[in-house]
């Protein structure tokens, strides 16, 4: 598989890694798929460093003021890769079909980044998942592989392998959580986009804070996609953003095991602004804490709210009379 070209550059002669992946946004949901796909084809990959305050500050400067925290973080990650790889990969997740959609932000991400970084001369590459326009996931990855210089057959096989890896990863997460949920003790269900919860700068402090207060943390997104989406379709039939369906479905699935729910969202997340409101309105009898993260740093406010939330749960359970 030695020699291959993208955009006329023979990659094995180039000193830079071929593909750079920003470690933000959908990377936390589908990153395993992309990485294994590229790995199976033998393409060198460069990840941007883990999120930090500096990266968020750069992103905040670059992105439009009114965009969401996650997009700002994403643009910061793209900036870290400029000039450090041949192409930056920003897959375009548009839809899996007429009623299986993604947030418009993921849809525009590739073109938005191309416009923001236009003067840098950096080249970008996408994998266009848009079933409504004749490019379902399988075909999208096939075309992506072909664009990288591999045969359709090689690309297809790489995608099949990578999909299996992604599925197994989700299954393992679900299994691990099942064991966790069976343990005794106070359990808090935390729901939010994986790119918030798994982000070392945004979500990790919240998870740490919960852990240090002695609560067992369950994650809504640790559930197989099909199970979650089926549950969500019953609960909210017109919710059609796949990632939101997974989160809502996860909440429905794990809620029985939990003593309280923390809904984490980024300011001003479009889908969350509506699905979280619906959850709060339809769930009665279980304490819910909505947390909205913005570019203001400092954890003191969040810690206070989580501590008092845990006190409420303890009070409800009769542990604090």
């Amino acid at each position, binding site marked *: 598989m030695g020699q291959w070209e993208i955009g006329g550059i023979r990659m094995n002669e180039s000193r830079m890694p071929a593909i750079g992946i920003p470690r933000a946004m959908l990377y936390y949901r589908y990153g395993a798929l992309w990485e294994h796909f590229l790995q199976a084809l033998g393409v060198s990959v460069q990840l941007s460093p883990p999120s930090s305050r500096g990266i968020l500050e750069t992103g905040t400067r670059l992105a*439009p003021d*009114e*965009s969401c925290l996650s997009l700002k973080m994403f643009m910061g990650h793209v900036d870290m890769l400029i000039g450090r790889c041949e192409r930056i990969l920003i897959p*375009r997740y*548009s839809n899996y*079909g*007429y*009623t299986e959609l993604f*947030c*418009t*932000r993921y*849809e*525009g991400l*590739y*073109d*938005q980044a*191309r*416009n*923001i970084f*236009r003067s840098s001369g950096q080249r970008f590459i*996408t994998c*266009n998942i*848009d079933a409504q326009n004749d490019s379902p996931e399988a075909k999208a990855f096939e075309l992506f592989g072909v664009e990288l210089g591999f045969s359709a057959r090689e690309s297809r096989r790489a995608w099949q392998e990578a999909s299996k890896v992604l599925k197994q990863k989700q299954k393992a997460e679900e299994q691990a959580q099942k064991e966790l949920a069976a343990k005794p003790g106070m359990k808090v269900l935390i729901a939010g986009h994986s790119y918030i919860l798994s982000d070392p700068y945004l979500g990790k402090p919240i998870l740490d804070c919960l852990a240090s207060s002695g609560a067992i943390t369950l994650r809504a997104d640790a559930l197989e996609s099909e199970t979650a989406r089926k549950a969500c379709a019953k609960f*909210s*039939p*017109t*919710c*059609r953003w796949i990632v939101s369906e997974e989160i809502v479905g996860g909440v429905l699935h794990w809620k029985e095991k939990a003593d309280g729910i923390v809904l984490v969202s980024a*300011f*001003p*997340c*479009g*889908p*969350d*602004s*509506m699905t*979280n*409101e*619906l959850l709060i*309105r*339809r769930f009665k009898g279980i304490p819910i804490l909505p947390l*909205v993260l913005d570019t203001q740093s400092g954890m003191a406010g969040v810690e206070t709210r989580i501590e008092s939330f845990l006190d409420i749960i303890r009070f409800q359970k009769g542990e604090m009379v």
Partner: protein
Amino acid sequence: MKQHRKVALPRYGEYNCALKYIVEQGFEAQCILPPPLSRRTEDLGARNSPDLVCTPFKTTLGSMIEALEAGADTILMVPGACRLNYFGELQEQILRDMGFTFEFINLSLYNTGNAKDLLKALRVVNPRRSMVKTARALYEAAKMIEHLDDITTLYYENCGFDPTKTYPKVYKQFIADMYAAQNLNEIHEAFRVASRAFEEITLNKPSDPIRIGIIGDYYTVMDPFSNLELEQKLADMGVEVHRLMNLANDMLRGGGKNKQAKIREFAEYSMGASSTADIWQAQNFAERGFDGIVQVKSAGCMPETDIMPVLANLSRDYKIPVLYLTYDSQSSDVGLMTRLEAFYDMVEMRKKVNP
């Protein structure tokens, strides 16, 4: 089943005349027009909505509340390409939590990509009436929307240069006629009367007037109340105001796919909802040598925020100024006027320096 439903759709510019026509001529039902949008509508909506949702959600919720107060027993809600598709379900929940009793027809539920499901929706709204009559009413309402948009376009392009000040009178009469129309003849007749009246007015327009193009999100740009009558304000300064974004152009006349090809340089793929149409329109205005572009969006509108970097590049390439306006539920006239005047002064100065 009730004898006569009292159907309402939240206020949306003047397009409610088309819904009224469909409901009254196509279905055997009565149409309740919610009161015109006001501060009260916005307050009612904002108070009962989640904070971070976009402004059209709040405004339409407020209008639904006012429709129910006005006696409606059925609320109809449309689907859409962005968050709009999810408006209905959450709004229904909020209205029920507020204690209202009503029937809610959420067309999003039937928007599955399968034409059969849309027919099902028609049967839900209209169980007994013949499909032929309904289809005819839909067609005639589409004609109404086209006429309404054509007259509105003419109005804002010219009303700033009318020395007799009769333009607003003609326009108002035309809108009233649209709401009163009972059949296709009356629709056509009202259109002819208004067009003729416009033609008879001698305009005092310079050969090369200042031309400004308006783009923006589906709701805010087409609803004069929501954009604080931006177009009228610009026209009153002596500007030829152009807006291609309207229902007739975007839904009835189509041409969406080829637009993407024309804007490839700026956006290879659709960036969601109104983005492709907006970028295409902005490029179109720039190529025709317009003096400025105004982007109108509601606070929190995702696709419109995403295209801001694209518009910035377009502005650089074509050397055309772009004014970005964001409307939330507490926008006041004064702030908008200041920004518009400053933008107008800048545009006028540029025109003098390089005519």
